[in-house]
């Protein structure tokens, strides 16, 4: 679900559902499994309500992704710190594009319009910026892990 607003809604619904029923659960693995189920259910509900959109993944893909999510390594604080540093090192225009996209929450098309770029040019700039940040974060995180 790449859309910020839609995810907002899903989280809101999931959160409400969980707080409504939280007293029946104890924190732990069972809780997490249950919360995951609630979130998945809310996601599918929003998708049904909104109707099929061209850029949405199929329900099967969503299920497959949900099943594989647990394999992801834990997110570390070092990563977030590295992320901050890496974004700061982006070239000014790339940083501006990232800022409009992620801080202001504009859609890619709006960012292109604000910056006076074509959609394709902006797409390239965002992909490159993300790739640069990704490589930079990996390098920093690896360096930090090696040092400790």
């Amino acid at each position, binding site marked *: 679900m790449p859309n*910020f607003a839609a995810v907002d809604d899903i989280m809101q619904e999931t959160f409400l559902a969980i707080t409504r029923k939280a007293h029946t659960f104890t924190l732990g693995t069972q809780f997490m499994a249950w919360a995951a189920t609630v979130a998945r259910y809310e996601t599918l509900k929003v998708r049904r309500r909104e109707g099929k959109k061209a850029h949405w993944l199929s329900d099967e893909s969503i299920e497959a*992704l949900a099943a594989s999510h647990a394999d992801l390594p834990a997110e570390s604080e070092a990563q977030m710190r590295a992320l*901050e540093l890496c*974004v700061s090192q982006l070239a000014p225009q790339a940083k501006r594009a990232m*800022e409009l996209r992620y801080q202001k*929450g504009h859609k890619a098309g709006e960012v292109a319009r604000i910056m006076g770029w074509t959609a394709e040019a902006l797409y390239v700039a965002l992909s490159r910026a993300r790739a640069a940040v990704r490589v930079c974060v990996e390098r920093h995180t690896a360096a930090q892990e090696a*040092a400790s």
Partner: protein
Amino acid sequence: MNDARLDFLLDRYFDEILSAEECAELDERIRTCPSTRKVFWERQRLHAQLRQMGQQSWGSNPAAEVPACEKPATFFSGAHRKKWHRWAALLLGSMLIPALIAVFAPRESLQPLSLLSVQEKTSRAVAVLAQSVDAVWEAPETTKAEGTLFTPGKLHLRSGLAAIDFFCGARVFLQGPVQFEILSTTEGFCLSGKLSSVVPPTAVGFKIGTPKMTLVDKGTEFGIDVQADGSCLVRVIKGEVELHQGGAPVALPEGQGAAIDTRGILSQTKAGSEEFPDAQQLRLRAAAAERRQMEEWKRRRDRLLAAPGLLTYFPFESHSNESGSLERILFNEAPGATFASHGAIVGARWAEGRWPGKRALDFRALSDLVRIQIPGEFDSLTLFTSVRIDALPNPLNALLLTDGFDPGEIHWQITPSGELRLGICGPHRKTDPKSYKNYDSPPVLSPEKLGRWIQLAVVIDQSKGQVSHFLNGQRISVEPLAFRHSLRIGAAELGNWNLADSLRVKPIRHMNGRMDELLIFSRALRDEEVAALGY
């Protein structure tokens, strides 16, 4: 299948510009290929983290935020949830579960990050520990140094006294055992225990909540004693407070008291004789605690004097005579110390050390330093000092540096990012200017640690072939030695580096802060010995 194509599809997916064909292609790959799913989650995480970072910086933007002394949002109140779910939502992605963990365990340590001015450091602190005496806090951090910054959160003081200054100007005295929560710059909550608060005119409106009522201060001093069952006693020591329980507020004038029972029923009383923690009590206990500390430190000093391998011991106690000449000497009190082993104080002034009664030298100007002379060659060395670093303004900030940097000589200093650095000159410096090695700790002196007394140590252990840094008795890093060479100090400086006139232009490395103890051992102390040096 090549990765560039997957990158392309995923980038377009996250920017919501996939065409129907591209979406079908991505969908197919996700359904059939586990490694694609792994890449998807990695990219999704970056996307979510970027958004989280953006959201947090938006949330911390002062222009977009209510003023500093705003009404606090409790965790589940609408305003807060709105902000919370904005960023947590992104983490969820389609169903990213760690976001739900974040809901129940928000990571306080993550500072708001900014895309706009990433160079600027930020803080979410709303209060500070102004003073504490005999304070024992709930684990994991049973001791808290004065100056500890508090972000909104719970505090459990098991015993002792503590004074907390809220940034709006109100001061709260806690008397353990007390369970208190800091909600914002202008509001606290007492679950159980005894406290009092002093509210200056600038902080009128300061609130303390309890399970059965909330007190709103009108510029006063009041005490509260909350029982575990929620019932409580209030006493207005000075001025007036308003007591809120949902209906119309009840004004309690000076000298009045109130009792609220477990059902929340209020009865006004004359103020009783209950004792509440206050400044006077804190002062008396602090003075007693300082005397005990000083006694304890003196006993430790006497023990240290008998420690094997003690080369130099500067306890930083000033001696005075009529001419004042002794005041410029930093006495080495190690057994067998010669007159030549005392330090010569230049510029630096005597000031208060870790506690009143303990002396320290204040290093501030470019000319503040202590000249020392430690002859000999050593296989291993341990350096220990108690310092209060106030600022790290220079590219390198001196603790102890040898005048030159010849083979085996050492430079102990701090980088601007707060890393402790020990440089050792290598054996081939004359032919190879790069023959030296810096052993750095992780950055430990973050801005909130500045201005507080800390203890630093470094152990150069040639038999184990390693260099270890210590902060407050804890080892924070260890690194293998790059080369073996006997170690030398010779002519050196504390808190500065003037190269003994060997260069016309001198780099500025002066220390900014105070030093109140320094020990040098001609051997590598074990971890537990370093911990025992700590006081």
